C-alpha cells in the first residue's frame, strides 16, 4: 500500500479583515463590497513561501525519523528564488539527509497536486522510500484589488510512503488546457487577471467537473463515494455550483471565510484540513486547478487513529490576530514608507560564509560536547563549559525542534525593524544551551521572563538591492 503517511500545515498568525479593506478602499474599487465577509491570512513580514513550507514540513515530520525521506518536492508560484533551488533551502532547514532529492515544482496553481502525483510515482516505483511534498504560497496583490481579498497565505505538507499509510492512494488523472484565468509574467510582481465571468463559467465551472468526470470514468467510480471532494475555487457561489454540477455532497470548504486562497498550496491546505476530521474508510478526491487539472484520490485507513490530530491548518486557523491594513501594506512593501538612515546600510550577504555555515544558519544546528554533554550555540571548536573546555569533542546538535524559556528580553525602538519594536532576548533551551534570538509573532506586553518559546524558520533580512532573502531562526512565544 502506498499513500500519505503523515501530514502537516501552517497558517500564519495574522488575519486581514476584508471589511477593513472595504472600509479603506471600496471608494476606489466598489467591487470590493462583494467580498467583505470574513478574513484572509497574512504572512508576517518575515515569512514567505519557503519559511511557511518549512513550518508545515516540521508539522508533518514531527516525531518521525527523517532518514528515510528520500525526496523533497516543493511547490509554489511565489518562491523567493527563480534560480537557487527553494526545495534545497527547505531540505537544509529540515536537516534532511545529504542524499535527498530536491525538486521545485512551479509555474501553475496546480503545481501542488502535480507534486503529490509525482511523489506517489516515486514511492510506487521504489525510487524513494518517503517523499516530502510541501507547498507554500505568499503572493503579492495590488492594493484595492479583488485578489487582495481572495488570496491568503499558507502552506501544507504531506509525507508519502509505503509504511503506516493513513490515506491510501487510489488513483490519479491529468487534464491540461492552456486556460488563462490569470498569469504572472517573468519578473512581474502581481498577477494579471482576466474577467471574472470568464474565469467562473469557462474555467472553474467547466474544467473542474470535466476533470472529475474523467477520473470517475477512468476508475469506474462514482463521485458519491467520496466523503470529501477538494477543489479550489475562491468564488463562493461558483464553488457551490460546481458541487451541484458534479452531484457531490462532500465538497470541502474552500476556506475563503478564514484563510483565503493559498494558490498552489491550496488543494494541500484544504486536504490537510479535511484529514483533521476524516474517518477511516473515507475517500477523498483532490483537484488542482491551473492550465487544466490534476486529480488525485485517497482512502483514509484505520492508521489515522494513531496520529495526533488536529494539525497545523486547523490549529493555525484557530490561532489568529488581526493586522491593521496599513501594517499589511507595509509588510508587503505596497507603500513606500520611510526607512531610517540607520536601516539604509545594506551590505551583501557573504555566500561563502553562508555556505560554510549552512547547517548552523539554515538548520539551526549547533554542537553538543561528547565529553561533557553540553549543547551549545553558536558552534565553536572548544567547549563552552568552563569545567570542560575540551577541543575536538563536538557533534552536531539541532536546536530547531527544541522549546525554550525566555531569560531576558527587550523591545527595541532604536533598532531598524519592519515591525518595531524589534523584540529579542536570551533563550535557554530545554535540554541545555542558550543563545540570543530575535522574537517574532509576538507582542511585547505578552512576553515575560520565563515565557515559553518554540523556534521558527524566518526571513532574517531581505536584500532588495540584490534580490537575496536571508533566513535564520527566531523564537515564537507559545500561546498558553
Amino acid at each position, binding site marked *: 500500500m502506498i499513500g500519505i503517511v503523515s501530514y502537516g500545515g501552517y497558517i500564519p498568525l495574522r488575519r486581514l479583515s476584508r471589511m477593513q479593506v472595504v472600509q479603506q478602499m471600496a471608494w476606489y474599487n466598489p467591487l470590493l463590497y462583494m467580498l467583505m465577509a470574513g478574513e484572509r491570512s497574512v504572512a508576517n513580514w518575515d515569512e514567505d513561501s519557503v519559511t511557511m513550507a518549512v513550518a508545515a514540513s516540521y508539522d508533518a515530520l514531527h516525531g518521525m525519523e527523517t532518514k528515510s525521506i528520500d525526496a523533497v518536492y516543493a511547490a509554489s508560484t511565489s518562491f523567493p528564488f527563480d534560480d537557487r533551488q527553494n526545495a534545497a533551502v527547505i531540505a537544509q532547514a529540515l536537516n534532511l539527509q545529504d542524499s535527498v532529492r530536491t525538486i521545485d515544482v512551479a509555474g501553475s496553481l496546480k503545481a501542488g497536486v502535480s507534486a503529490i502525483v509525482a511523489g506517489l510515482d516515486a514511492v510506487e516505483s521504489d525510487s524513494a522510500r518517503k517523499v516530502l511534498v510541501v507547498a507554500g504560497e505568499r503572493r503579492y496583490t495590488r492594493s484595492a484589488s479583488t485578489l487582495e481579498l481572495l488570496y491568503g497565505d499558507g502552506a501544507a505538507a504531506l509525507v508519502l510512503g509505503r509504511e503506516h499509510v493513513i490515506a491510501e492512494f487510489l488513483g490519479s488523472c491529468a487534464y491540461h488546457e492552456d486556460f488563462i484565468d490569470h498569469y504572472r509574467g517573468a519578473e512581474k510582481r502581481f498577477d494579471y487577471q482576466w474577467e471574472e465571468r470568464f474565469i467562473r463559467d469557462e474555467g472553474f465551472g467547466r474544467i473542474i467537473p470535466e476533470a472529475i468526470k474523467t477520473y470517475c470514468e477512468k476508475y469506474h467510480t462514482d463521485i458519491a463515494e467520496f466523503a470529501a471532494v477538494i477543489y479550489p475555487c475562491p468564488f463562493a457561489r461558483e464553488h457551490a455550483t460546481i458541487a451541484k454540477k458534479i452531484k457531490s455532497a462532500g465538497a470541502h470548504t474552500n476556506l475563503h471565510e478564514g484563510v483565503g486562497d493559498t494558490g498552489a498550496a491550496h488543494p494541500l491546505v484544504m486536504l490537510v484540513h479535511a484529514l483533521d476530521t476524516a474517518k477511516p474508510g473515507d475517500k477523498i478526491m483532490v483537484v488542482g486547478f491551473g492550465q487544466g487539472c490534476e486529480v488525485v484520490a485517497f482512502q483514509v485507513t484505520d492508521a489515522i487513529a494513531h496520529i495526533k490530530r488536529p494539525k497545523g491548518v486547523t490549529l493555525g486557523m484557530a490561532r489568529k490576530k488581526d493586522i491593521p491594513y496599513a501594517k499589511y501594506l507595509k509588510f508587503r512593501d505596497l507603500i513606500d514608507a520611510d526607512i531610517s538612515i540607520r536601516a539604509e546600510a545594506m551590505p551583501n550577504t*557573504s555566500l561563502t560564509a553562508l555556505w560554510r555555515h549552512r547547517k548552523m544558519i539554515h538548520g539551526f544546528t549547533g554542537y553538543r560536547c561528547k565529553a561533557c554533554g553540553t549543547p551549545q550555540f553558536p558552534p565553536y571548536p572548544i567547549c563552552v563549559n568552563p569545567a570542560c573546555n575540551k577541543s575536538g569533542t563536538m557533534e552536531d546538535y539541532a536546536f530547531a525542534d527544541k522549546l525554550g524559556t525566555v531569560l*531576558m528580553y527587550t523591545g527595541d525602538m532604536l533598532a531598524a525593524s519592519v515591525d518595531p519594536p524589534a523584540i529579542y532576548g536570551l533563550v535557554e533551551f530545554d535540554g541545555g544551551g542558550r543563545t540570543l534570538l530575535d522574537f517574532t509573532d509576538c507582542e511585547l506586553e505578552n512576553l515575560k521572563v520565563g515565557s515559553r518559546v518554540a523556534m521558527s524558520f524566518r526571513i532574517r533580512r531581505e536584500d532588495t538591492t540584490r534580490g537575496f532573502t536571508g533566513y535564520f531562526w527566531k523564537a515564537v512565544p507559545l500561546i498558553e
Partner: protein
Amino acid sequence: MATGIKDKVAIIGMGCTKFGERWDADANALMVEAYNEAISDAGIDPKEIQAAWLATCFDEVNVGKSALSAAIALRLPNIAVTRVENFCASGTEAFRAAVYAVASGAYDIVLALGCEKLKDIGYGGLPEFSQAIGILNSLWFPNITAPGCFAMLAGGYCAKYGLKMEDVKRAMAHISVKSHANGALNPKAHLQRPVTEEQVLQSPMIAYPLGLFDCCGVSDGAACAIVCSIDVAKALKKKDFVTVKALQISVSNGEEMAFSNWDGAHVVNTEKAAMRAYQEAGIKNPREEISLLEVHDCFSITELVTMEDLHVSERGRAVNDVMDGFFDSNGTIPCQIDGGLKCFGHPIGASGLRMVYEIYLQLHGRADKRQLKDPKIGLTHNLGGFPMMNVVSVAIVGRYKN
C-alpha cells in the same frame, strides 16, 4: 613573579575637549584640542614624547584605520604610534598600553589619546554595527542595539532579586537625575541641564524598560594622558603626582551567552576585572577605601548593576544605596561627579581617558565647582559590548605612595 603596575607609572599631564555634538570640529581638531591641553599641563616639549597610542572604535565613520590620523594631526615626529580598539574600553586600552610601555622601561614619556567623532553619520544612537561583530554573526545575530541589550539587564535584575520594575526604574531615574545635576556643574559636559525624576520617568521609551533619559549622550570628543616613569616624574620636579594603582581588562569567552551559568542580573567581567584591580592596588574594602567612581553608565541600569559588581553595594542592594544618596555628589562615594557618560557624553574611544581625566583633576584639587574634599583614590570602569558578551576595563589611580 609579576608584581602588578602599582606606583610604577606617573600621570604628568592630561587633556580633554569639550564633549558634545561638535559640528564645528573634525577628529583632527578634537585630537589637537585635547593634546594641547595635556602638553601644556605636563610642561614638556612635544618632541619628548617617544611613543603614542590612539584609541578609536568606529573607524569606518571616524578617522579610519591605523594610527596615521593621530600621527598626522599631532605631527608626531615619526615615533611609534599604534591604534588600539576594544569597544568602549578602547580609551583605557590606549592608556594601558602607554602605561605598560613605560613600566617595561622601553620609554620614558609616552602619550595615550582617545578620540571619537560619532556625529557625522546623520542619525541618533551609535553607528549601525551589524557587520562590526564579524561576517558570520551578521548572518544570524539579532539586530541588536546597545539600549536594547542593556534593557534586558534590567529585566534580568528584577527577576533575580524579585524586585518590582517600578522600584528599579525609580532608582535608575535617581541615577540619571544625579548625573544631570553633576553635569550641570561641568563646562566640558555634553549635557549641562539638570532634570527631575519625573522628567526621566516620563521620557519616551527607547528599549523597554529604558527611556530616553536612561541613555547616555552620543558625543564627539577626545581625551589624552601623558605618562612617564616615577624617576622621570621626579626629574621633571613634579610634586604630589598621580600614579596608576591598577589596570585590568576582562573579556567574555562566550559563557554568558551560550552556557547556562549566568544569571542575567550582573556583568561577569566587571566583577572579575574589579577583583583583580583591588588585589593589584592593595584595596581590601572598596566601599571604605575608594574616594570616587567613574563608571560606565552607558545606561542607568548599567551604573546600578556595576555598583554590585564592584563590590561597593551588596548583591540586590544597589537600589537602596542609590536611593539613600550614597553615590550622590554629597554622598559617601560620589559616582560620575563629572556627569558621567550620561552627561559628559560618550565619544567611545575617549571615554576611558575622560574618566581618568576627572579623577586626575579631583586628586589635584582642580575640579572647580564639583571639587570633592580630599579624594585619595579613584576608580574608572568601562564596559564595552553587551551584558551577555563584553570587554571590561577597570583602572585605579591615586596619589603617589598613598
